[in-house]
């Protein structure tokens, strides 16, 4: 197994850092899948996470100037590692002004992802800072847990309102209740509701627009659906807040698919990064 990658451009480095920072805010530990074309940060929906799962996909070529990968075997040309994104985030933070950053898979006291940054210095010779991030190699037999999630058979798909607005609404609602209902319809309307014994608060968003999914089975299903009918899911408010808190990248497109009473599927798209986040509904 071999992995070496290099970032020479400061813009790419900053972009990569922002993505990693977002992942750091979402989870303490995740799986890093490295393939020839992409880099994925995956969190599989286990009970420990409260059923939340995450899939973040980066197009490698848009970040790295050099990228070499030799996977586990010829027919499984990828590497799967378990890593704490916070370590990666910290390492990248110190490399902010770096002339170049090299990431490679090494073996120190155990398998590590070594990040070596060349920093500008006062002398002719650059400073080098190296961070060894301990990782765990995930054996091939467990890879099925970390496959790309399929888009669920959603009832409603809607574009999200500006994330900042959503975040301030959710932040305030968090003080009142532990659970929040996300509901939306195919008419571009979305509501965020909380209901307690004493008070219920609803924030209404309209004219959001619904993304066209094209030749999709769900589309035909939702076509027969009444445009005004709301699909809703009641979720743990902290999970939604965590998702909104971490957003550092301004997505080109952000949308939400709701499977009535089952799950909400949040999708953030940028030209070279996509982030999907699944929050299961609670009763």
């Amino acid at each position, binding site marked *: 197994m071999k992995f070496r990658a290099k970032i020479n451009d400061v813009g790419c480095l900053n972009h990569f850092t922002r993505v990693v920072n977002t992942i750091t805010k979402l989870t303490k530990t995740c799986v890093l899948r490295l393939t020839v074309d992409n880099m994925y940060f995956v969190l599989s929906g286990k009970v420990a996470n409260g059923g939340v799962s995450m899939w973040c996909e980066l197009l490698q070529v848009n970040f790295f100037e050099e990228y070499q990968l030799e996977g586990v075997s010829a027919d499984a040309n990828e590497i799967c590692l378990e890593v704490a994104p916070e*370590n990666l985030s*910290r*390492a990248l933070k*110190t490399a902010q002004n770096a002339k170049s950053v090299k990431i490679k898979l090494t073996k*120190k*006291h*155990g398998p*590590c992802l070594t990040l070596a940054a060349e920093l500008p*210095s*006062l*002398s*002719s*010779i650059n*400073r*080098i*800072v*190296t*961070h*060894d*991030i*301990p990782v765990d190699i995930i054996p091939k037999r467990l890879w099925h847990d970390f496959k790309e999630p399929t888009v669920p058979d959603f009832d409603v798909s809607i574009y999200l309102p500006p994330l900042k607005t959503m975040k301030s609404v959710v932040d305030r609602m968090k003080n009142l209740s532990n659970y929040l209902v996300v509901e939306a319809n195919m008419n571009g309307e979305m509501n965020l509701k909380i209901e307690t014994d004493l008070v219920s608060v609803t924030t209404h968003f309209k004219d959001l627009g619904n993304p066209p999914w094209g030749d999709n089975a769900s589309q035909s299903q939702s076509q027969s659906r009444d445009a005004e009918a709301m699909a809703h899911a009641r979720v743990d408010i902290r999970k939604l807040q965590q998702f909104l808190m971490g957003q550092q990248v301004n997505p080109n497109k952000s949308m939400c698919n709701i499977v009535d009473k089952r799950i909400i599927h949040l999708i953030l798209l940028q030209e070279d990064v996509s982030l999907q986040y699944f929050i299961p509904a609670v009763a």
Partner: protein
Amino acid sequence: MRCTIAGNGVKVFGRAVHALSRIGEDIWLDPLQKGLAVRSVNSAQSAYACFLFSPLFFQHYTANLDQGRESKGVKCKVSLKSVLPIFRSVATLERSVCKCEISINVSDSRVKFQFNCRHGITKTHNLGYQECEALQAVFPTHLCPNILKAQPKLLSDIVMHFPTSQEEITLSVSPLRFKLKSYYEEENDLIKSMNTEMSLHPDEFDYFQVGVDSDVTFCLKELRGLLSFAEAHGLPVSIHFGASGKPVSFSVEGMVLEAVVVLATLASPDSENPSQESIPQEAPAPRNRSEVCPGNISIADISMDEGPLEAEAAGVAPKLPAFPTEEQVASSQGSPVFIPDLHMRNLLQLHGDEVGLSRPSLCDVIFESESLTSPATPATFKFRSLVFGAVSSDQVNVSALELPSLVCASDTEDDTGEDSGMVEE
């Protein structure tokens, strides 16, 4: 003791208190003729810091008010828990305080910090103190084979790469390379934690002298206070150290103040000097002659590259020690002998009478073994404060020393050097 600090100085003093708070729980106030020494030491006695404010730093400075008494001010110890909140917000101090008066009231046993603030507000804090013996570390930086000097920004930039939770780091030098890396005592931590390493070229330093290739491991947390202080005032930092096991000192020198932090370092398990590994016994402390060290350390002042330090010949014949030493300092003239374990043992000296200076300008701590000069008169004992570059002189003789039991290495129990071979060659 009474002194007054003008507006600008208050924040400097405040920053010094912050830096000292990183080290220990108490600060020792020691009003000397040459200035006010504010010191702290950590509970394991593996870290010591001293800020010396010369009389020029103050608007007024009087070391002792009662001329009739001993010719020195009262020495006292105040808990940092009481002092730190007073200087908590340096920004507020800067904005609102015009003047600060510090005085020690012996009859009440109180140290008074009185702030004259804007708008006619006066804030007075009366803190109880414990009278105590002065705390002073004795560290012959001139005997250190390795001396580095760097701009504070450089050191801050380097240290920035290590997380604030990082306890210990290892500094490795050779004439061509400077390297800092994180150090983990526990095998477990080593495997699970992120390991950071930073290397620089010696060109980045203002001065880089490496007499002995060495790796010293010390506590980073305790140093950060001084580094922030140095950066805030733009003062270059000098680093003196030797081989592993010997202390490392970080010092800054300004126009009206000096500061130093001395940290113990972990002893390397494969040191050639077996005696280094032994836990030092508490040295006996006879009242009229102090046994500074059973071995022999002779004095040689080696003038440093910069600074107004004069080389002073000790004029004492050295005697080779009975047991092997770690190294001979290359640049020494009178073949001074540097005995690591004894050095650590003698790092901190608590003594009853004030230790003054016998020369106007200092190099560093120098101490003489009584076995070198047959009549061990007090005059032959020259104790100097750890902080070098003193402004004024004192002609007080040392009459007694008391050596506390000291922790040889950093504050871990494994000072017999079981640090899992992490120290590099």
